[in-house]
């Protein structure tokens, strides 16, 4: 099973992955009807349960960058900041969840991490959102291709 997970919050700058997923979801499901798409509001440990059992998981989350807001970046696990490494149940980061999932040997064969650049307080314009959505769709097409979907 292939699962695409938009991670964020319904509110504030952290809602970018939700907004972009809303834009591309109809076309994605039309082109890849067998994939599963879900939205997770700051999932913490729940993320492990959501990726467990999949063959391919794509995590899409907002990242703070100095580059233009809306830029789509495919990230390596090593690029994620997990310096706190506290494994709190209340606030487990994506990086920590991935680490723990790896330790528990429940990571899918293919894991893609996608960041969407944001700058705090700068909401994406509609044009930026459309551009970002197209970039993400293209990137996901490549991921689907690798996953033989």
């Amino acid at each position, binding site marked *: 099973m292939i699962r695409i997970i938009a991670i964020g919050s319904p509110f504030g700058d952290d809602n970018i992955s939700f907004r972009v997923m809303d834009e591309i979801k109809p076309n994605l499901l039309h082109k890849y009807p067998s994939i599963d798409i879900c939205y997770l509001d*700051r999932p913490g440990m*729940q993320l492990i349960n959501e990726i467990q059992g999949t063959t391919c998981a794509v995590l899409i989350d907002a990242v703070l960058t100095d580059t233009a807001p809306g830029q789509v970046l495919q990230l390596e696990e090593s690029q994620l900041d997990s310096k706190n490494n506290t494994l709190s*149940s*209340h606030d487990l980061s994506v990086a920590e969840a991935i680490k723990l999932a790896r330790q528990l040997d429940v990571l899918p064969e293919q894991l893609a991490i996608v960041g969407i650049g944001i700058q705090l307080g700068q909401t994406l314009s509609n044009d930026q959102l459309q551009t970002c959505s197209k970039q993400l769709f293209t990137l996901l097409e490549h991921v689907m291709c690798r996953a033989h979907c």
Partner: protein
Amino acid sequence: MTEQRHIKINVPVLTRVEGEGALDIEIENNAIKHLALRIYEPPRYFEKFLEGRSHLDVPDMVARICGICPVAYQMSAVKAMEQAFDFTPSQWTLNMRRLMYCGEWIQSHSLHIHLLAAPDFLGFDNALAMSAKHPQIVHRGLRLQQLGNDIIRLLGGRSVHPVGVVTGGFHKAPSLQAAQNLLQQLQQAKDDCHALVDWTCSLSLPNNSQDLVSVAMAHDDEYPMYRGRIKTSQGLDIDAAEFEQHFIEHHVAHSTALHALHNGKPYLVGPLARLNLNHELIPANTLALIKKHGINLPSKNVFHSIIARAIELQIAVDSAIHILKHYFVSNEPVEKVSTCASTGFACTEAPRGILWHKYTTDEQGYISYAKIVPPTSQNQAQMESDLRLSIMNFGLHKSEDELRHFSETLVRNYDPCISCATHFLKLKVTQT
């Protein structure tokens, strides 16, 4: 000649916590000179936010207070407002509210047991390190957490900050098929629950037995979650409306979080307090199991809280199974509530202890006054008192590392929101 020793354990900011806190301990010449669990939660103004809002908005707003126990806030809120409106919910609604609460207890307790507390007792820095040697423990925690989340999602639409609760009932009744699927999952979890109780009883837990005042709800018919009166181990038995007469909140200089005292003294709320006051209601086979491990109830050892959580998790699973076995799809999941100008009070049992709400409403059901007393603030004074006593008993001659680890373990053992960051202490030592 006695060695002169001066130790300062100072943590200016506890990071990654719900609210902000710090711990200061100063030991001088084999005596605790200063101890303060400083909680400086940023003002969140939730009670003021609620003023002027409709009773219909309140459940979704208070759910935002906590990401781990939003259901508890919703339950105390609707219960208090319905009391204000002199509305009695249907038995179906009461059952569903207990079911949803079961979900929250299961997810909250499983996470605390497996991720926060277990590494302390098994000698690991954190759950990640522990998972290398004991992956089955973390797997079990994840399975149970998922189960709890699934229950909350069934009734609340989502597991974090659910939205299904409303005065008068629930926005929607789950389908029979969804309820049956969940029932099947719960039945499959029974072995995990039994093993969990057995395992927590087998842990090597410190003994910090002390005189405790346990405060919890109690109900003749069921282990308390949603229903019941407030009782203490000293014999107090009151309705939620009388809470303010017996439990006094006050400011302390080192914390913006209110401390609470009963008869001028700290008191314990949470799983162990509940178990101490309701142990007659736990299943006989569970009682036999813990007795086999030499654990008797009521317990004065606060480190038995992890066992209490495991027992409560089992109770929650059993209770959820019972409710779902008799589930039917209500034609009227939400009933009409007639609003009036009034004041209502309610207390329910959040995973961390009693959660008390008070609301004053106008005739249209708009909130003019709200007061919320969460369990974490009620345990603040008890935690400080426990730290003083337990560190003394542990031995002030111990190394700074040992003292720090013991203090961290003790604070985490209470599962306060402030300890949601594990291993939060950075030790600053001054020796003279």
